[in-house]
């Protein structure tokens, strides 16, 4: 029995250590921090501050920020917004990984990076009323409350002269799914 106890304690200790290692992994930076921005520990974030796995970013009134993740996904966060990076796995060599982000409130504009380019399904943005999947694009999510979120596709458009693949958004409320492929078009997700 004592051997089992030792094994269980060791396992718990190892798991605790592993969680700490993962939690201390840097996944990006605050590339722009204007105004009052903080994390879940109430630490003030400024331009150049590091973002760690599981961090919640709070952008207060009259403030805004750009979060740059290691796969070059850029999240521009407007005032009175709160978001969490719940999952971030990225291998810079293969450019394969996964991002799960949770936008609790506010406005966040997202320019997708390498992870989404390699595998569009591996970028997931959750809002209180549903979730958004994105393929090679730029889009904005406005979460007004836990009852209503609006998602707008920004680009690139079909007539782009850069040879870019036009963006597509896949929005679901858990029951119904809507695709947006025309820039400027939006979908409102209610609870």
């Amino acid at each position, binding site marked *: 029995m004592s051997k089992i106890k030792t094994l269980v304690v060791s396992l718990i200790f190892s798991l605790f250590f592993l969680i700490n290692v993962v939690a201390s992994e840097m996944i*990006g930076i605050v590339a*722009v921090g204007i105004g009052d921005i903080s994390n879940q520990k109430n630490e003030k974030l400024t*331009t150049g501050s590091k973002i760690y796995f599981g961090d919640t970013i709070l952008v207060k009134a009259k403030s805004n920020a750009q979060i*740059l993740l290691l796969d070059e996904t850029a999240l521009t966060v407007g005032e009175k917004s709160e978001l969490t990076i719940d999952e971030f796995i990225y291998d810079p060599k293969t450019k394969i990984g996964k991002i799960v982000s949770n936008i609790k409130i506010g406005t966040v504009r997202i320019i997708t990076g390498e992870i989404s380019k390699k595998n569009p399904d591996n970028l997931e943005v959750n809002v209180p009323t549903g979730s958004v999947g994105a393929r090679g694009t730029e889009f904005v999510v406005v979460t007004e409350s836990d009852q209503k979120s609006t998602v707008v596709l*920004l680009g*690139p458009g079909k007539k782009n002269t850069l040879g870019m693949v036009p963006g597509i958004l896949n929005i679901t409320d858990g029951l119904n799914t809507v695709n947006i492929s025309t820039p400027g078009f939006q979908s409102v997700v209610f609870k």
Partner: protein
Amino acid sequence: MSLKFKKIILLISVIIFYIKPSIAEVTFQEILENPADLEINLKYATEQEVLGRYKSTLSTLERLNMLYPVNTDIKLYLISILLKMDSAAKLQLMIETMLQDPNTSKETRDYIQEILKTIRDQSQPKPKWFAYLDVNYMQTDNSNIDGVSKTGTLYARDNVSEFPGLKYDKTYSRGASITVGKNLSSSSAISFNGALSVNTQNKGEENESDLASGSVSYSKIVGKHFLLPYIFYSRPNQRLSADLKTKGVGFNNTYNINQNNSVSYSSSYSKSSYNRSAANAASNVDDANNEIYSANIGYNYSFSDVNLISSKISYTEKNAKKNYNAYTGPSFNIGYTRILPFGTLKLDKTFETNTYEEKDTFVHSTISREDDIETSQIQLSGRITQLIPFIKKFDLESKIFYNFKYTEIDSDSSLLQNSSMRKNTSFNLIKRFSLYE
């Protein structure tokens, strides 16, 4: 290869050598370490644009725009990227914000108005039909118009004889062509072209002709593909030699990998037949009747908005009624294009080897014909108002085009008469009249 062209090739090599190391000097790691540094980030944005990674350019410019909100150059750069990305909603928002900003200068406001006009023009449906007339004059100085051999001799039934012929002469071409087309959709069009020209020579008459030609082409954009199939017909009426008619079909397609890289590929087939008449019945002119198949693939790389390097490999097969007129041959072409304020400069070099199928025993019973041809070309073309701005007073719509061309064809052949050097300098003026648009 002439010394002049060796220098040009050397110059292109030096440009490439200098440009290559300058690409991707700033790494993403440096951006993570210096996200607010204007110089590093701006350099990163332009480098990423050159590499075709526009989303990186966009996010970097947005960051700089947030950090340096009064910097108009960043805003205009950002607008140019949004325009290219066809991000209409965001562009509109950006422009409105700039127009509402009291710090926006008059010059910038004028520039924005220009952009808005461009957007409005682009959103308006194109007219379905269009038609224009081109009137053309060209003068060419030929250093060796009859292709007199380098040694001044030729083979005739295995014997060496003197090559008779004219060397220096001028030719003049006056012509007109009419193009009528229809835009079938926003990404496809069809056009019909008919042309007539009269070609005269100053001293001799050997190269004088009237030429009638016509073509039908269809253009279509499918995703990243630009497709251009066509058919054509031409009928030169030669003053001294037999008339011929040529008809053909082909396509000339381009695949745009991204803004900087593209692959072009084309193929064509043509059939030429000479007219036998009572006047030339004895000379068996139809022995030269032929069919030509040709295919090529090329790669184009533009390393900035004004510089393009291109290369192309081709293969040609010519079948003729008499096999001594038939050949097969590969060719390789390399070119450099630079857009200058006064026109577009093109430098081109083509290496070609043609191996003939059969000996022409009338010429030589033991020597098979094989030609190595090097063609070098320097060309400057554009609108005449780019060269002489004063002309804008008369050419309000800038529809007079010019073209200067210097061509050097150095041919080395196993047969004496086919080894020759020709240098041609031509000047061409085209006036375009819009008939319907």
